[in-house]
């Protein structure tokens, strides 16, 4: 009797990771990688019974091939998107999951390093961050996978009281080649009083069918400020998974402005730990979906210290058969008195077949806490559509104007006015084409 069964995906991936053998880096990292492979192979991928993955199917990930190692992945062959900022800004390119050389010259007081170099300079900090990542259980399978493949990475360090300006990271994958699921890790280390604007732009070649598994870990010293802007315009064939963890000390500020305008399967996880008084974390995001695209935002803020503030502000526009997920959690621990938590998630369904799952989770164990939350899923205000039409705007134009205004609440949160206008334009052009209420189709010119 033949007892051999086809290898499962997890087995195949685990085997491929073991076959890669030891990767460069210190001994502790090698041991941790091995442990991560074991954890991954044991827990397997999350499924519908995994609470945090209930609404996000992992099918898209199953189509991908195991990660490859080394830098022979066609770095030169990738067409990069036009930079969001002026071309002379400090810019780092990631092509097919590999850091493109050479790295830009960093301003005074700032280091921009590849992981291997960064490990030599900041091993203690990086070790602490790498070991902090939870590898256990199926809900952490992708974190385990990322740790198991930890080879490609970027380390950014900003010295005390240095204002580093903007750093733009462009992620692009090529249309050709295997559909690999590439891991990448970013470390952002901001000393006390340091400031950094960290921008990410995701845009691959038109038919690229790859996956990215990105972990970003930031540490903010006393009074440090990290601005994080992400504009994602991947083709529908791309799969993107990101996980951002921010460790915050007293008086530090973190702000996220995220725009998902593309991608087939996209999931962003965020975790902020407010470990010092008066820390502030602000997550604002918008997404525009059509066809069968999927975007999932999972935000979790841990108020572990008094007088901290956090905000979650997400808006979604869903057309076609698309699906959106928002899960916003805030934990206010005992003793974190005087905390303030604001949460708002509003969604606009443009199609009968689109679906939005939104779930706020507030857990409050402290006193004198200010907390507000609201979630809505609705349709365009037909009175407003009619009002605009009576002024001469076509049905389609009226709907676009209203939908665009809905997302503007998020683009307006970008401080840089020129960038805000540019992103708003990108959001507008990502709007689903066939808006409802226009069933009569294009009218003949009269």
């Amino acid at each position: 009797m033949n007892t051999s069964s086809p290898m499962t995906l997890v087995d195949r991936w685990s085997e491929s990771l073991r076959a890669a053998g030891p990767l460069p880096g210190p001994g502790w990292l090698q041991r941790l990688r091995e442990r991560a492979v074991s954890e991954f192979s044991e827990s397997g991928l999350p499924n519908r019974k995994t609470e945090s993955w209930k609404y996000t199917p992992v099918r898209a990930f199953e189509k991908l091939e195991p990660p490859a190692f080394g830098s022979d992945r066609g770095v030169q062959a990738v067409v990069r998107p036009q930079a969001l900022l002026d071309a002379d800004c400090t810019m780092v390119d990631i092509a097919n999951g590999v850091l493109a050389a050479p790295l830009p010259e960093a301003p005074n007081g700032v280091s921009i390093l590849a992981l291997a170099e960064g490990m030599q300079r900041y091993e203690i900090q990086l070790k602490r961050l790498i070991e902090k990542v939870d590898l256990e259980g199926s809900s952490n399978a992708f974190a385990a996978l990322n740790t198991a493949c930890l080879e490609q990475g970027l380390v950014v360090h900003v010295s005390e009281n240095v204002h580093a300006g903007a750093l733009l990271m462009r992620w692009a994958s090529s249309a050709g080649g295997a559909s690999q699921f590439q891991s990448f890790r970013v470390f952002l280390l901001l000393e006390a009083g340091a400031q950094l604007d960290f921008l990410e732009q995701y845009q691959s070649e038109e038919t690229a069918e790859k996956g990215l598994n990105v972990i970003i870990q930031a540490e903010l010293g006393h009074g440090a400020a990290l601005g994080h802007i992400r504009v994602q315009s991947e083709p529908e064939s791309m799969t993107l998974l990101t996980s951002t963890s921010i460790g915050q000390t007293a008086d530090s500020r973190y702000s996220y402005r995220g725009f998902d305008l593309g991608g087939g399967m996209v999931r962003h996880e965020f975790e902020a730990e407010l470990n010092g008084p008066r820390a502030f974390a602000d997550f604002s995001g918008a997404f525009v979906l059509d066809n069968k695209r999927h975007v999932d935002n999972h935000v979790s803020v841990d108020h572990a210290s008094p007088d901290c503030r956090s905000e979650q502000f997400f808006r979604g526009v869903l057309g076609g058969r698309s699906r959106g997920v928002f899960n916003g959690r805030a934990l206010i621990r005992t003793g974190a008195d005087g905390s303030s938590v604001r949460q708002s998630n509003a969604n606009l369904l443009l199609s009968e077949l689109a679906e939005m799952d939104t779930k706020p989770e507030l857990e409050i164990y402290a006193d004198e806490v200010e907390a507000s939350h609201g979630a809505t899923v609705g349709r365009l205000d037909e009175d407003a559509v009619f009002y605009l039409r009576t002024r001469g705007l076509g049905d389609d134009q009226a709907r676009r104007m209203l939908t665009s205004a809905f997302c503007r609440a998020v683009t307006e949160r970008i401080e840089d006015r020129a960038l805000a206008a540019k992103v708003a334009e990108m959001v507008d052009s990502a709007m689903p084409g066939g808006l409802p209420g226009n069933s009569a189709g294009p009218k003949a010119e009269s």
Partner: protein
Amino acid sequence: MLEIRNLHATVGGKPILKGLDLKVDPGEVHAIMGPNGAGKSTLGNVIAGREGYEVTAGEVIYNGKDLLELEPEERACEGIFLAFQYPVEIPGVNNTYFLRAALNAQRKYRGEPELDSMQFLKLVRAKLEILHISDDLMHRAVNEGFSGGEKKRNEIFQMAVLEPRLAILDETDSGLDIDALRIVAEGVNRQRSEKRSIIVVTHYQRLLDYIVPDRVHVLADGKIAASGGAELALKLEEQGYTWLEQGGIQALDMEIRA
């Protein structure tokens, strides 16, 4: 300009207009008065093309065209303007941006070049002053957080910019204090011209002290029950709508015919 014949319309299956006739010539100002529920707002909505207002019989001819065949935006581009009784708040849409987009949509329809923001600002500046509209209001979202008076002034301001051939003012006086009423009326009067017709729909006579109509019609139970000159409005004010409903129409008709 506008000819309505035997118009019947239902809202949610309920008959509201029951054989309304009305003829408005170019340059004329007509007032339509009537008690609540007579169908005043329905008339405005049917002319503007709001969904849910079903025309079951009759016709509306506007400049020789069958108006009921046109989409709301086509009616607007053909020169019809409805000043809303309750202007809609549109969060996130800047007032200036919206109005320029609307004007340009109409200009495009008529084959005229679109205006850039500089040309547009030049055009609107003078009109803002007449209606006492501050720059600040122009930079806010359409009607969002506007006071009742500001909303109505904004409607008349839009009318001044869009320069319609037929404007329907639906209870534009409601919710206005006497000063705001004067400003709005002044804004409307400045727009009276030989080429522009205006239909003023109102419950009260007081607006007509400021906008003096050429013709006054009484709308009751879905039909024009009586028509006359400006003096008819005064008569109504004096007697009240109850008197009208209790058979006063006959007497009124006699007087007017006389």
